[in-house]
């Protein structure tokens, strides 16, 4: 069974600064995908970034980047130049690459507040 751990319940950052959200996971799988989802107050789940475990290069999407450490089973999200609209709950999620029935396993989430 897979587990995803987000140990920080909440964080706060000043607008325009950089913040890093931590995530660790546990799995016996070798091939899998990792995701960060953003959930704003509207509670919609929005995909922020995706990382394939077999790729060594860290994924980047504009101001969002990850630090993927496969051996350490760590997958942190870095948000650069934080904006007020980044205020949301952020979930780390894992899915094994073992077939169509694979389900996402989520962490408990972290509440990020961006201060003006």
């Amino acid at each position, binding site marked *: 069974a897979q587990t995803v751990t987000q140990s920080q319940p909440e964080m706060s950052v000043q607008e325009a600064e950089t913040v890093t959200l931590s995530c660790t996971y546990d799995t016996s799988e070798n091939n899998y995908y990792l995701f960060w989802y953003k959930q704003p107050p509207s509670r919609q789940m929005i995909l922020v970034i*995706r990382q394939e475990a077999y790729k060594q290069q860290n994924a980047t999407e504009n101001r969002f980047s990850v630090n993927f450490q496969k051996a350490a089973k760590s997958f942190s999200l870095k948000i650069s130049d934080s904006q007020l609209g980044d205020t949301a709950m952020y979930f780390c999620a894992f899915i094994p690459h073992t077939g169509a029935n694979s389900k996402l396993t989520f962490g408990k989430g972290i509440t990020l507040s961006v201060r003006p």
Partner: protein
Amino acid sequence: EPEVTQTPSHQVTQMGQEVILRCVPISNHLYFYWYRQILGQKVEFLVSFYNNEISEKSEIFDDQFSVERPDGSNFTLKIRSTKLEDSAMYFCASRVTENYGYTFGSGTRLTVV
């Protein structure tokens, strides 16, 4: 950009009543899912659906729950006799193949009173 559409956005129902939550996945997607999130808690898997049948279901998905894809476009979740503890946000999701991430709908907030 294609979206997964869920209706209604918010439903209030009395305990013991049946509810049907509706989802229209992205048209070329083949795999469909329901997840739920009780307020303040993590998102939990309910059920996956592929090729017109359930692929996997969680312990939460008991006999009170059912899913179907009646007309090739809609994907519904039915709760036969709602309980107070069914109050949650329910998310539908779909994906085109197993190599892609999910696209989530905007959710249905179910409140059981």
